[in-house]
C-alpha cells in the first residue's frame, strides 16, 4: 500500500526476527558445540561451523572408517590397517607417530599391538596403523609430531587438536578410524557410552508414560463424577480438591520423602510415579470439559439404560479428547522434565531419570563441553521431536490452560 505501511511491516518482521534469533540461538549453540572437538569448543573466538559438519571430511572419515571397520561407525578391528595421508609440499623430517596411552595405565594394548609405518609418497606422508594386537577396538586415537620446518601441511582428516610442542606441531586425533557417523556424532557416542543413558531414557519414558495413562484415567473418572453425578459427599470431595489446589509443591517435598522412605519406596518407580498420579489440574480441566458438554446427551444415555461407567467410556471420554491431550502433554512434559523430585527420591543410577542422569553427567563431564552438549541434546531430543510432530496440540493445549 503506502510507504509507512510497508515500513511498519518491515519493522514488525525485523523485531520478530531478532527475537526469534535470540530464542533459537542457545539451541544452535548447543548443537554446534555438541559437534565440536574440545579444542574447537574452547576457542576465545567462537567457531560457527565445526569441522565435523563439513561434508568433505565425512568422505575421508568414511574411507578411514571402512579401512578400520565399517564406513558408518568405523572401528579398529584386528588385522586391519588404517592409512592417514598428510600432504606436504616437499619431503622433510619424518613425522613421529604414536598412540597416546591412557592416563594412569601401565600399558596400552592398542599401542603395543599396533605396527606403525611411515613413508613418503610424491607429495604426502603415508602413515599406516596396523592392528596386530589380536583384539578389536572402537576407537583409534593417534598423535603425530610433525616438524615445524614444513611451510605448510594438510592432513586428510583435520586433527581434533593442534598444539605446539617444541620444534614440532603436535596433531591429535581422538579417533582416526571414525566412519562417517562415528566422525560427526563422536561426542554423542562417547556421551552415550559414558553413562547408562538408555536406562535413563527408559526410566523417564516409563514413569512419565505411566503417570500420563493412569493419571488420565483417574482424573477423567473423578472429573466425570464431579461434573455429572449427584452423590452424597460430593461437596466434601470438592472441598478436598480445592484445598489441594492451594498447596505449593515445596510443602510436599519433605513429608512425601519421609513417607516414601517409611514405605521403603526410595529408588523405586513407585516413588517417581505414585505421589503425582492424582492431579488437581487434570480434574479441574476435565471437569470443565464435561460441564460444557450438553446435559441431554447423558440423560438420553441414562434413559437408554446406560450405566454411569458406559456414559463415561462411551460419551464423555471420546468427546473430551482435546482436554485429555492437553492434560497428557502437560503431565508428560512435567514428568519428563522434572529434576527436583527424581533428585530427592533416587540415588542409584539404575533408577535415574534422564534429567537426573544429565545432572550427574554435568557434574562429572567437567570441561568436556562437546560431550556435555551432546548429552543435553539427547535429553531434550524426544520432547523436541514430539513437539515438531504435534505442534498444534502442544500450543493449543498450553493456550487452553491460560483461558479459563
Amino acid at each position, binding site marked *: 500500500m503506502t510507504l509507512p505501511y510497508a515500513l511498519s511491516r518491515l519493522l514488525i518482521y525485523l523485531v*520478530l526476527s531478532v527475537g*526469534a534469533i535470540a*530464542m*533459537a540461538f*542457545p*539451541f544452535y*549453540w*548447543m548443537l554446534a*558445540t555438541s559437534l565440536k572437538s574440545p579444542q574447537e569448543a*574452547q576457542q*576465545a573466538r*567462537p567457531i560457527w561451523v565445526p569441522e565435523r559438519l563439513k561434508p568433505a571430511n565425512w568422505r575421508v572419515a568414511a574411507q578411514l572408517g571402512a579401512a578400520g571397520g565399517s564406513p558408518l561407525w568405523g572401528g579398529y578391528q584386528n588385522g586391519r590397517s588404517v592409512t592417514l595421508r598428510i600432504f606436504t609440499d616437499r619431503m622433510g623430517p619424518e613425522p613421529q607417530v604414536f598412540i597416546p596411552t591412557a592416563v594412569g595405565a601401565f600399558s596400552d594394548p592398542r599401542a603395543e599391538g599396533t605396527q606403525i609405518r611411515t613413508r613418503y609418497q610424491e607429495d604426502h606422508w603415508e602413515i599406516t596403523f596396523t592392528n596386530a594386537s589380536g583384539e578389536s577396538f572402537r576407537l583409534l586415537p593417534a598423535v603425530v609430531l610433525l616438524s615445524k620446518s614444513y611451510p605448510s601441511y594438510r592432513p586428510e582428516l583435520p586433527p581434533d587438536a593442534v598444539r605446539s610442542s617444541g620444534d614440532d606441531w603436535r596433531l591429535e586425533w581422538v579417533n582416526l578410524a571414525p566412519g562417517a557417523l562415528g566422525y560427526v556424532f563422536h561426542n554423542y557416542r562417547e556421551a552415550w557410552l559414558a553413562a547408562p543413558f538408555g536406562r535413563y531414557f527408559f526410566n523417564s519414558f516409563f514413569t512419565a508414560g505411566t503417570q500420563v495413562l493412569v493419571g488420565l484415567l*483417574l*482424573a477423567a*473418572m*473423578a472429573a466425570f*463424577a*464431579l461434573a455429572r*453425578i*449427584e*452423590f*452424597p*459427599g460430593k461437596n*466434601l*470431595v470438592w472441598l*478436598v480438591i480445592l*484445598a*489441594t489446589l492451594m498447596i*505449593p*509443591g*515445596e*510443602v*510436599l*517435598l*519433605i*513429608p*512425601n520423602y*519421609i*513417607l516414601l522412605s*517409611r514405605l521403603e519406596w526410595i529408588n523405586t518407580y513407585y516413588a517417581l510415579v*505414585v505421589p503425582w*498420579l*492424582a492431579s*488437581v489440574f487434570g480434574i479441574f480441566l476435565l471437569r470443565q470439559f464435561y460441564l460444557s458438554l450438553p446435559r441431554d446427551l447423558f440423560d438420553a444415555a441414562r434413559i437408554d439404560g446406560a450405566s*454411569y461407567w458406559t456414559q463415561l467410556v462411551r460419551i464423555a471420554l471420546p468427546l473430551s479428547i482435546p482436554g485429555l491431550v492437553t492434560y497428557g502433554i502437560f503431565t508428560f*512434559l512435567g514428568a519428563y*522434565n522434572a*529434576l*527436583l523430585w527424581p533428585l530427592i527420591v533416587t540415588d542409584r543410577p539404575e533408577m535415574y531419570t534422564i*534429567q537426573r542422569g*544429565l545432572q550427574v553427567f554435568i557434574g562429572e563431564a567437567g570441561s568436556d563441553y562437546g560431550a*556435555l552438549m551432546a548429552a543435553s541434546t539427547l*535429553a*531434550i531430543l524426544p*520432547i523436541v521431536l514430539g513437539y515438531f510432530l504435534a505442534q498444534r496440540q502442544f*500450543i493449543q493445549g*498450553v*493456550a*487452553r490452560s491460560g*483461558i479459563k
Partner: protein
Amino acid sequence: MTVLLILVRLAVMLELLPHWAYGLGAALLVGTTLEAILRTFRPALLPGLILLLAGIGLGYNLAPAVVLALVGVGALYWAWAPQMSEREQASFWGWLLVWPAVGLLLVWQIIPSLYALWLSFLDRFNFIGQSRFAGLLNYEILLTRDPLFWKAMGNTFWFVIFTVPLGILLATLVAILLNERVRLLGFFRTLYFLPYITALTAAAAVWDWIYHPEFGFLNWVLGTPGLDWLSTPQGIFALALAPLGLELRGFWAGPSVAFVAIMVMSLWHLLGYQVVVILAGLQNIPKEYYEAAQLDGASWWQQQRYITWPLLSPTTFFLSTLGLIGAFQVFTQVLIMTPTGGVLQDTLTITLYLYNKGFRDSDFSYASAIAVVVFIVILALTVAQQRILERRVTYET
C-alpha cells in the same frame, strides 16, 4: 464425615510415629464408619466409604486391602444393582469413580501438608535419634536469626520484580506483533515456544556454557573476556552506582550479577509460554473494537493502550499470579548453573535453600518450617494480589 476424615488423618500421623498405631487407627476408622452407617442407615453410603478407605489404602501400597475392598464392592454391587434406586446408583458410581483420585490426593497432598506443619514444630527431626516438640523454635530461628533465609527471600523478590513485568511486557509485544496478520506466524510461534518445552536441566547446561568465563559466547559478543558471570556476587545496583560514589549494601545492592544471569535464562525459558497465552488472549478480543476505533481515528498506539491492554488484563493477571508462584519454585537452573548456591550464596532461592536444609543437612523440621512459611507467604501474596490488582482487571461482560 468430617470426623471420619480427622480420624484418618490422626491414624496416619500415628503411623508415622509408631508403626502399629496405624492398624489401631484403621480399626477405629472402620468401626466409626460402620457405626455411622448403622446410625444414619443409608446403605448406599457403605460402598462409598469402603472405597474411600481403599483409596487411602492404595496410596499406602496396601495392595491386598485394596483388592479385597474392590472385590467386596463388586460383590455388593452385583448383588445389589437390580434393586438399587436411581439415587443409590448415583452415589455408588460417584464414589467409585472419585475414590482413587481423592484417596491419592489425601495421602500424598493433604495429609503430608498437615504432616509438614507438625514436623515444623519438632526439634531437628531426621531419621536418626529422637526429636522432641519445640514449639515455634524453628520459626523463631528462621525469621529472626537466619540471614540465608532472608537472602533467599530477597532473591525471590528480585526474581519477581525483574522477570514478571519484563516477561509479560516482552511477551505482549511479541504477541501483538504476531497478531498483526504476520506471515510465517506458525514458524515464529514454534521458535518462540521451543525453549518452554525443553528441560530446564539441559537448557541450564547450555546457558552455563554460554556464560563460560573463558570460552563463553556471551563474553565474545560483549567483548568482555574473562568475565565470570556466574561467580560474580556483586549486586547490580551496587555496581551501577559505584562510579557515583554510592555504596549500596545487602538487599539494596540488588540481585547479584550471577542471579541476573539466571533470571535472563529463566526469562528466555518462560517467554514462549507467555507469548502463547497472550496470543490466545488477543485472539479473544473482538475485531469490531479495533474497527470502531479506526473509524474514530485512533492511532495504533492508542488502540493498543485503550483496547488491547485493558482487555488483555485477565490474561496478564493470570500470568503475573503464575510468575509470582513460580518465583518461589526456581530450583533447577540454579542447581545446574551454580550448584552450591553461588559465591556467598548469592543465587540462593527458596526451594534450593529448602532442598539444602532438608536433604543436605538432614534437618527435616527446619526445612518444613521453610515450606510452611513459603505456603503462608504465597497465600498472602496471591490474596493481596487478587484484592489489589484484580480490581483493575477488566473482565468483558
